[in-house]
């Protein structure tokens, strides 16, 4: 069979086209037929959402497993940072600004939403630019932007800070940088992972080169992927081809969005504004060089340095029965958690993975009944 290729100027609908999906599925089956059982991990909440929504796992041969890693920025946001955000929101004269997803995430004693009910000042913004506008509009008030997210969000914040912000706006930075966590995943999974699907938007910022260590150190192939069924199946097919040929490149299967070198301007901004320091990934571990931290020259914008944000209680990452940290590491499935769909639901989440639409538990809860025919 002639291998299918996808051209850049493809009709967008084609990325959902059932016939193309079928052809890719056939190609994957043929490739996989002579391969031993293997596991591929993706590290993007958007991918988990698409994979479950489009029932992609049902298209794959049973011995080819695609498992979810720590791809949801809301889930990996350390509880310590949410506790700090809550402390700030409760300070008189301070308004905490953040994206909506993080509001309902349970922290040590409460959530930001509960803090708001208890008189804390918390406002949802849709872009960091809104934070600038709000701060300019109320110069008497102190604002703190609580920044949660991976490279994409961090780049936005870096751009903003680089071009100057009002004096009454501070930042509580909890952004995480993805590449170093792959080393931890390799350590936890030993030699049971054979490849990675790289996050779509985050790699658009960093480019592919930051994952070269996967090729050099671990001899494992990686592929970027988009978010439509065809994007994901195509990336899986390419990964399987590399695995089969014992090749370990980092390849770009989402070239309509990602340039191999990434976004050079964003990279420059990130370098200018942030250092990378060891950072906690909620309940998972402290990972070297994975936390964006404002450089010393921007200490005057750092809420941790300028405002009293230390809570009076010690942090607790998870409810004792919640397996979020292991779900995020791809060690267990949400169904392995005793609370899944019982005590823990999106309306009453016990752990972060049940809150965000990119969280593995939330995704599995929302789309668990979808079968191939409903595509």
């Amino acid at each position, binding site marked *: 069979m002639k291998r299918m290729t996808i051209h850049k100027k493809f009709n967008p609908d084609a990325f959902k086209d059932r016939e193309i999906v079928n052809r890719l599925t056939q190609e994957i089956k043929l490739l996989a037929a002579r391969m031993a059982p293997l596991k591929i991990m993706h590290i993007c909440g958007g991918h988990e959402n698409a994979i479950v929504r489009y029932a992609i796992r049902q298209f794959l041969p049973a011995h080819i497993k695609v498992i979810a890693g720590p791809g949801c920025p809301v889930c990996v946001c350390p509880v310590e940072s949410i506790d700090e955000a809550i402390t700030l929101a409760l300070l008189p004269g301070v308004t905490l600004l953040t994206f909506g997803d993080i509001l309902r995430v349970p922290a040590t004693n409460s959530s930001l939403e509960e803090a708001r009910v208890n008189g804390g000042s918390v406002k949802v913004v849709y872009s960091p630019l809104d934070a600038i506008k709000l701060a300019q509009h109320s110069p008497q008030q102190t604002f703190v932007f609580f920044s949660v997210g991976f490279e994409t969000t961090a780049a936005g914040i870096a751009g903003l800070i680089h071009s100057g912000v009002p004096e009454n706006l501070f930042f509580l930075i909890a952004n995480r940088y993805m590449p170093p966590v792959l080393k931890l995943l390799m*350590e*936890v999974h*030993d030699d049971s992972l054979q490849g990675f699907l790289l996050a779509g938007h985050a790699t658009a910022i960093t480019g592919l080169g930051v994952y070269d260590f996967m090729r050099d150190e671990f001899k494992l192939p990686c592929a970027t992927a988009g978010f439509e069924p065809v994007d994901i199946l195509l990336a899986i097919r390419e990964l399987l081809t590399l695995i089969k040929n014992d090749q370990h490149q980092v390849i770009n299967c989402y070239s309509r969005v990602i340039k191999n070198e990434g976004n050079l301007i964003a990279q420059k901004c990130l370098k200018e504004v942030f250092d990378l320091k060891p950072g906690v990934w909620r309940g*998972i571990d402290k990972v070297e060089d994975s936390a964006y931290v404002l450089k010393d020259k921007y200490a005057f914008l750092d809420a941790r340095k300028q405002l009293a944000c230390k809570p009076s209680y010690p942090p607790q990452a998870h409810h004792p029965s919640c397996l979020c*940290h*292991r779900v995020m590491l791809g*060690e267990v499935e949400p169904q392995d958690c005793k609370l899944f769909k019982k005590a823990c639901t999106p309306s009453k989440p016990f752990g972060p993975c049940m809150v965000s639409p990119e969280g593995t538990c939330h995704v599995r809860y929302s789309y668990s009944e979808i079968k191939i025919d409903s595509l």
Partner: protein
Amino acid sequence: MQEISYQARNNVGHIKFPIHNGAMDLSHCRQLLHTIELAKEDHACKVIILWGGPDFFSNGIDLNAVHLQYNASILAYKNLKALNNIVHAVLTANTKLVISALQGSASAGGVMLAIAADLRYARKNIVLNPSYANLGLCGSEYWSVLLPAIIGYGFTQKLIYEASPVSAAEALRLGLIHQIIDGEPDTFEENITAKAEYLASTNINARLAAKSVLNHHLLAQMETQVKLELEKMKDCCNHPEFESARGRFVEKNGHQQPLFLNAAAGNIQQKNKRDDQDDNTYEANDNT
């Protein structure tokens, strides 16, 4: 102080690792592995002696360091894999004869490190605690290959399930060690060095050829068994039992004497008392 050292004299490589409390953290493990690899590649060395330290041979992974970590399970898992690599390096030292010289006690992974050697000599008062269950762990470091091969399936069951500590005398009867060498530490060291130098200089090829035949089956089982061990260990590391055992360990020993050695010493004292009272001895129990 440099904790891990290697010195080669008269065809014998001496590896010393007097690590505080015998508790090996990740960097100790990596350093010891590197040292063993160095000795394995040293053509001048025919026999390697693992000396451990004067107070403890080795007590396996450093639970204090593990307990203080953000995610103790992950560090414990990394740490025990690093210790696995050391035991693996000893077991695959095909061109050397390896001796372990136990001046002090050993427990958990430290016991496996000791018994991975081809010949094992110990001082009189040492205690071996080859069980992990007291720590909420099922064990790794190739115990499921080594113990049955050395002491048999039945004794392995007893040691592992009952988590029983073993005195030097019992260890000798079981075959965990080959000889008890009495006397002062200096005499112990001289005695073993002399033995090693003799073995290294007399018919070493024949001894190594015998080793390769004897270890053939054991080496073949290693890969499958270690996978099983690690799979179960990962579950144990994430189980609340491990967390509470660790908590008790850190709290009780106040970063001093490892809990299991206190327990082991206590158990052995009690057992000696019982033995004095009636003759219900360990081997009498196990011969039934």
